[in-house]
């Protein structure tokens, strides 16, 4: 099937959808898709009020820059975790404490495109400690701590453009990885775009994860030709020690890629032997090159983030490191690369191919041993296709993108163009079942479905097109997801629910691996914030030049102090608010009238800082924004702003009037 035919299919499908939606009453009912599901499905996703879901699902927010957390099977939204985007609700990126989290070598970047969440693993099993996610636009990787469900760390990836093939952990979270989706000049430089083939490179990055703290550090980078490195997965079991990256645009073109990057019959999966890389690093066979990248870490003790600018990175060159990288030819611009639970099979989802190509890890090792090379590109051997291919799933659907596994020897592949998920048998390559998705599914997720030990009970399809699935909300619609039961021979649609942003990948984990570690509040005696007031007796207001620091506390239902005078126009006021509460789910908020900033929302035992530069004299109310108690509406105060040249004395009080 040629390329033009393939591309005409979505157009036809879209035309068909338009007919369907126009043909039905938008207030009365949607398209018929999925209505054939049995009535018992409602019972299977029903989680009674007050009961917990069996699984957590972490869906990336795509262009929202966040992670949304759902319960499965109910599809209930539990939380939205801000990661790469500022969030006025939680003051993420607005309060002084979290601003450094979004620092980069370009300064404060308030947004990114968050694609692939990846849970930490121990012995190939999700362990519920952290979830990593890549920022695609300004290359970054974030780590979210699953004891607090807050972003704990963000590291920038240098020498990259478009961090798409990331983070995809190894089986003990030794590494998370990054790979550039866009070739960029190396080193980054002002060159003619048309000099792509000559000046541009593609860098893969291995980020070491501290097994205790989870802290990330760039261990090394591998310099490759300027292909577009699209997705990745690390080996497991027998293939532990290797990471596989798909590539497209092996044509190395820099314009009209939809045509120019779709010419080669086969692109490559790059197989990187990171254990070999560790040996080369130990032998000193790397180049240390200057690089500027930010490393931002949030501390639960100081309740503050710090941003450090790193200066250099170790780079390995395949020409000088034999055995480090091999290319596996894979038909037609492979998108996802997915390794089965045994670690033997590497599925290359060639998105413009009619078939699904599966490589064999043991055949790959044999081919390497026999030096069955087709050719060599920049010192990287290209293995012979026939020598590495382990099997082909024949014509399973159109536009394969991603594959997950259920732990019973079955694989599930999404097909974007034919808008379906196809179940097939690993090893026999026979198609077992297929279900439609509504519409044009991208990624899919089975809890643990990319680990050695999948928890294969449910499957979630994350779709790119929503159309008529829910009540219309104007031109912009939420994305749609479907939940399927995969415990039997046939996949069964159970639930359809809207999602936040544009979920790309997702991860799922049984709740019992997460719940025991979840923190309910921060012990106040462990608060090491430099501006904390650990009791009302420690509250005060201090002036340093035109900076005024207010050490404030909250407890149901008042601020201390709640009357402040002596602040002047031209001052910069820092409200350091410590929440003295020591109970679950008693945050207090703080907002002051006219502040060109967000509120702050302070968790029990935490300190957060809001900065305000008052513009006009007057008396300004502030109040608690979180309905905290029966007397929440009384939780308010006043701050008096005097003209710049006035000499109103600096005074503060709680419960009595300020005496002049």
């Amino acid at each position, binding site marked *: 099937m040629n390329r033009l035919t393939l591309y005409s299919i979505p157009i036809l499908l879209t035309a068909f959808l338009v007919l369907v939606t126009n043909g039905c009453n938008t207030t009365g009912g949607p398209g018929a898709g999925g209505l054939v599901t049995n009535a018992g499905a409602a019972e299977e996703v029903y989680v009674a009020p007050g009961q917990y879901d069996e699984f957590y699902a972490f869906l990336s927010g795509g262009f929202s820059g966040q992670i949304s957390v759902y319960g499965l099977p109910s599809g209930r939204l539990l939380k939205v975790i801000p990661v790469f985007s500022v969030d006025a609700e939680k003051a993420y990126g607005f309060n002084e404490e979290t601003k450094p989290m979004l620092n980069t070598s370009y300064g404060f970047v308030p947004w990114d495109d968050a694609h692939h969440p990846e849970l930490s693993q121990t012995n190939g099993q999700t362990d519920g400690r952290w979830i990593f996610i890549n920022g695609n636009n300004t290359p970054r990787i974030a780590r979210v701590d699953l004891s607090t469900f807050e972003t704990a760390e963000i590291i920038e990836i240098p020498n990259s453009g478009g961090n798409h093939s990331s983070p995809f952990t190894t089986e003990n979270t030794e590494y998370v990885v990054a790979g550039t989706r866009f070739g960029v000049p190396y080193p980054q430089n002002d060159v003619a775009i048309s000099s792509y083939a000559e000046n541009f490179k593609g860098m893969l990055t291995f980020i070491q994860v501290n097994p205790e703290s989870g802290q990330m550090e760039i261990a090394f980078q591998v310099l490759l030709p300027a292909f577009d490195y699209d997705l990745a997965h690390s080996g497991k079991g027998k293939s532990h020690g290797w990471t596989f990256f798909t590539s497209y645009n092996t044509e190395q073109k820099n314009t009209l890629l939809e045509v120019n990057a779709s010419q080669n019959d086969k692109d490559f999966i790059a197989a990187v032997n990171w254990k070999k890389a560790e040996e080369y690093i130990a032998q000193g066979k790397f180049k240390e090159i200057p690089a500027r990248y930010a490393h931002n870490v949030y501390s639960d003790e100081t309740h503050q983030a710090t941003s450090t600018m790193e200066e250099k990175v170790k780079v390995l060159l395949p020409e000088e490191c034999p055995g480090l990288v091999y290319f596996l030819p894979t038909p037609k611009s492979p998108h996802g690369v997915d390794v089965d639970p045994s670690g033997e099979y590497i599925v290359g989802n060639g998105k413009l191919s009619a078939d699904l190509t599966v490589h064999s890890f043991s055949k790959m090792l044999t081919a390497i041993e026999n030096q069955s090379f087709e050719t060599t590109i920049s010192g990287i051997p290209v293995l012979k296709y026939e020598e590495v291919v382990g099997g082909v799933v024949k014509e399973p659907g159109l536009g394969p993108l991603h594959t997950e596994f259920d732990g019973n020897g079955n694989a599930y592949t999404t097909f974007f163009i034919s808008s379906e998920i196809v179940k097939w048998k690993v090893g026999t390559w026979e198609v077992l079942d297929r279900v439609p998705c509504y519409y044009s599914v991208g990624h899919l997720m089975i809890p643990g479905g990319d680990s050695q030990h999948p928890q294969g009970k449910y499957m979630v399809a994350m779709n790119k097109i929503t159309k008529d699935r829910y009540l219309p909300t104007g031109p912009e619609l939420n994305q749609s997801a479907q939940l399927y039961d995969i415990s039997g021979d046939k996949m069964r649609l159970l639930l359809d629910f809207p999602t936040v942003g544009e979920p790309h990948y997702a991860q799922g984990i049984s709740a019992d691996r997460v719940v025991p570690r979840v923190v309910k509040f921060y012990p106040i005696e462990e608060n090491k914030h430099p501006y904390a007031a650990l009791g009302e007796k420690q509250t005060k207001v201090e002036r340093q030049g035109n900076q005024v620091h207010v050490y404030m506390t909250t407890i149901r239902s008042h601020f201390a102090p709640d009357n402040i005078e002596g602040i002047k126009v031209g001052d910069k006021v820092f409200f350091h608010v410590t929440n003295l509460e*020591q109970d679950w789910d008693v945050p207090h908020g703080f907002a002051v009238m006219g502040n060109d900033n967000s509120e702050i929302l302070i968790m029990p035992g935490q300190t957060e800082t809001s900065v305000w530069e008052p513009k006009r004299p007057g008396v300004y109310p502030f109040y608690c924004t979180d309905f905290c108690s029966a007397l929440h509406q009384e939780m308010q105060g006043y701050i008096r702003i005097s003209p710049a040249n006035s000499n109103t004395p600096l005074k503060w009080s709680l419960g009595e009037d300020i005496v002049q």
Partner: protein
Amino acid sequence: MKRLPQLLMALSIIALLSLFKLPLWRIKLIAPQYPTGVNMDIWINKIGGDNPGTLQNINILNHYVGMKMIEPDSIPELHYFPYIILALAGLGLLALLINKPWAYISWAVLVILLAAVGIYDFYLWEYDYGHNLSPTAPIKVPGATYQPPLFGKKTILNFTAYSYPHRGGILAGISILLAFVAYWLKKKKA
């Protein structure tokens, strides 16, 4: 078996001394917002709960209706109660050495009398906290008082309060029983 009464008396003393390790009493408050309850534990020398924030949380709740803050430092009983328990243990040891029925029964009666005084004192504190309300309380319910139950269950506004002996209190009760059994055995043999 000749030494059984003395052995029982020794166990009785150990049971009493457990009060240094285990809480005497628990007041449990349950409300819609507190599905697992707020558990306030009373020890012979401190007031706490099942987490470090318990006392603060109870004080926050109490201040809405004008009840006084519970400040363990300002409750004198918590300072001298440990000495009373130590003195009782010492007298128990004396009774054990004397090893006569009258010694055992005198000790058991003494413990009961002191326990009665203690429970009356507890009642007085509860009465004071429940009735002595601030005139500026944010929430005033005409005629309402907030005295927790001495023993058993009671509804106080949105809370259901349960007041029962905790592990240490139960062991103290067992201590008294053991002393009575020791007396009875000794008397039977004599």
